[in-house]
């Protein structure tokens, strides 16, 4: 018999290590954000100066507006797309495995690759617009990538392509776990397929929906590689996002203090999403325990 490792060693040691790692670097970043550090970290205290200058900069303001737009649009649309795909796949169709793999496949592609490929597809000079022109529809216009008002939507498109398969997989698992007896009961009561989904099946999916929303939101808030490959914050600074601003301040502009301040602001945004989620789960678990 092989002796098994005690459970606490397997779980607690790695957990403590990563927690210590995460927390110590977070504290270090918070500390740097209050120092006058530029090229290298230095000691000293400048109070909220770094925060004020980040919050006052156009880059951050644009990045924050974009984050709101991108976060909401991306989460809702990828949720809708994922759910639709899951429902369609749920119809016991032929070739379900192949289709499921295809829809899930983009998730296996790195964001840099996704961004680069979409930057070619969406480039009006070489991509979709040119293709349609070549087919003969000369007035067709699809120049979102180089249009500053629409460029943020190209990121939404690419992000949805990448991650709606993930939402689909979770939803599909949820759909499959609905008790067949309930569905049959609904059918006996005379509910059509649409009504069955809307009134019986979908309401059971909402814990999964919340999970998908939280996972997608934290991706949206920390989005970096996709944007960097697709638009690099451009045209101009029209598609800046917080993570790009942090990178830019720290590694392009050598302003460590301000970059750290922007990073802490990002952490606060993330907490604004995660804390309510944690509270919600806590309440739910307590209710379940009482029931």
């Amino acid at each position, binding site marked *: 018999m092989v002796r098994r490792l005690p459970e606490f060693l397997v779980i607690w040691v790695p957990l403590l290590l990563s927690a210590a790692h995460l927390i110590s670097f977070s504290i270090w970043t918070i500390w740097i954000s209050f120092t006058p550090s*530029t*090229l*290298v970290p230095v000691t000293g205290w400048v109070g909220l100066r770094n925060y004020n*200058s980040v919050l*006052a*900069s*156009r*880059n951050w303001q644009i990045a924050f507006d974009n984050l709101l737009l991108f976060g909401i649009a991306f989460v809702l649309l990828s949720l809708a797309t994922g759910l639709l795909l899951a429902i369609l796949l749920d119809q016991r169709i032929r070739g379900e495995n192949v289709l499921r793999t295809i829809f899930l496949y983009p998730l296996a592609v790195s964001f840099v690759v996704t961004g680069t490929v979409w930057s070619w597809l969406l*480039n*009006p*000079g070489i991509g979709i617009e040119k293709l349609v022109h070549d087919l003969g529809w000369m007035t067709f216009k699809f*120049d979102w*990538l*180089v249009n*500053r008002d629409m460029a943020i939507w190209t990121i939404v498109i690419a992000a949805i392509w990448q991650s709606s398969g993930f939402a689909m997989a979770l939803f599909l698992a949820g759909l499959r776990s609905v008790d067949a007896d309930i569905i049959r009961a609904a059918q006996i009561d005379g509910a059509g397929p649409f009504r069955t989904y809307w009134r019986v099946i979908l309401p059971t999916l909402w814990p999964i929906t919340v999970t998908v929303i939280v996972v997608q939101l934290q991706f949206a808030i920390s989005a970096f590689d996709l944007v960097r490959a697709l*638009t*690099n914050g*451009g*045209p*101009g*600074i*029209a598609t800046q996002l917080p993570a790009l601003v942090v990178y*830019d301040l720290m*590694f*392009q*502009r*050598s*302003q460590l203090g301000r970059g750290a301040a922007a990073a802490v602001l990002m952490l606060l945004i993330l907490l604004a999403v995660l804390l309510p989620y944690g509270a919600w789960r806590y309440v739910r678990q307590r209710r379940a325990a009482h029931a």
Partner: protein
Amino acid sequence: MPITTTRRRLLAGSAAALALPAFARAQGAVKPRLTAISQWSAGSDGAAITALGKKFEEKGGVWQHSPVPGFTTDMMNKLRAQIIAGDPPACSQLKGPEIAAWSKIAPTVDLDAVVAAAGYEKVVAPDLAKLHKPAGKWIALPLQIYSTNMLFLSKRGMDRAKADKVPVTWADFNDLAEKMKSSGMAYPIANGGTRADDGQKFEASLAGISPTAYRAACMNLDKKALEGPEMKAAFAQTRKISDWCDPNVGVQPYANNLKRFVEGDMGMLIMGGWAQGVLKNAGFKFDDYVITPGPSDNGKPVFLLNADAFIFWQRKEADLQAGQMLMAQLVMDPAIQTMYSQITGSIPVRTDVDLSGEGWSDGQRTTAAALKNAMGNNQAVLSLAHNMAQENGLTAAIIDVITEYVKNKTIKPEEAVSRLAEAVEGAR
């Protein structure tokens, strides 16, 4: 058995290295060694620094160059890590005002004696020299020069527009662009849409309109000059240039347009001399295009200086110190500068190098003549877009405004002027 050999060699090598300082003290001479980092890893840049390393070895030195591919800022991240670890390279690439900024975080080598011995100061543009002796002492040495505002004219593009006059002023330039446009060229200007490219459009405009205003606004950040009439005129000219560029370029680099430029589908390009190297690498010939100084309203060439340099970091090891002195001598050597520039397409820092011989292109000769002329008229200024005029943080804040203006055509020139002044204030 390759592994054993390597290990044995390594052992022998480290034994020799360990013995070297002692040997040095005994003999008064050591085998010079240089640890260097730069971003130059591939293409003509990589070839040039490899050639420099060969020369270093020919002089009996040990050349240990570790390239960090990518942008200059990626190289800086490695340099930062090494400095924090207390182990800086003996020599690293660094340029412009960053030399002054970085010299404050780690001790540098005083090069005054070796510079004086080479008589280098007399043959370097004064503004450029100042950047390399931030506290009055030489601590870094410029290696090669580019002008960021050379005007490239496509031969086929000129033929197509039936134009034969090379533009001198911005008015000439604008006329020629219109002429090209009316000859059926949809986008007469082949510039790209990167941040640096947008910065170049603006700096070429301002310096061409008034080098004095450029010096006051972009180099000295004079508040009055930043809000002056030349700034507004420069933004207006920048808008004209960007209107003549292909809007589908987005944030792509100019290099994507070079084929269309050579074929006459686009007529002009405002770019640094490095574009010549890129054109050459892409298989185009020198007589596909003409290089001339960028438009200047007073008729005399304006030279927007961009210079690569090496900074020398203090080390205790005798062999590294000897290597630093050897490297400094090589970098200042006219023969080495000639070799280097002929590979990269730049021009030598030394203004006394003769470019009439073989191995130089007409474009390089024009550039060198423009530099001499511009220095004589006090019209050689430092490039903002390529981090020569200000430190990275300030440059980035200014370029933010410029690139947004170029991409957003609803921003009026006067609005851009006040935004730029605000950005400078905010970043200071």
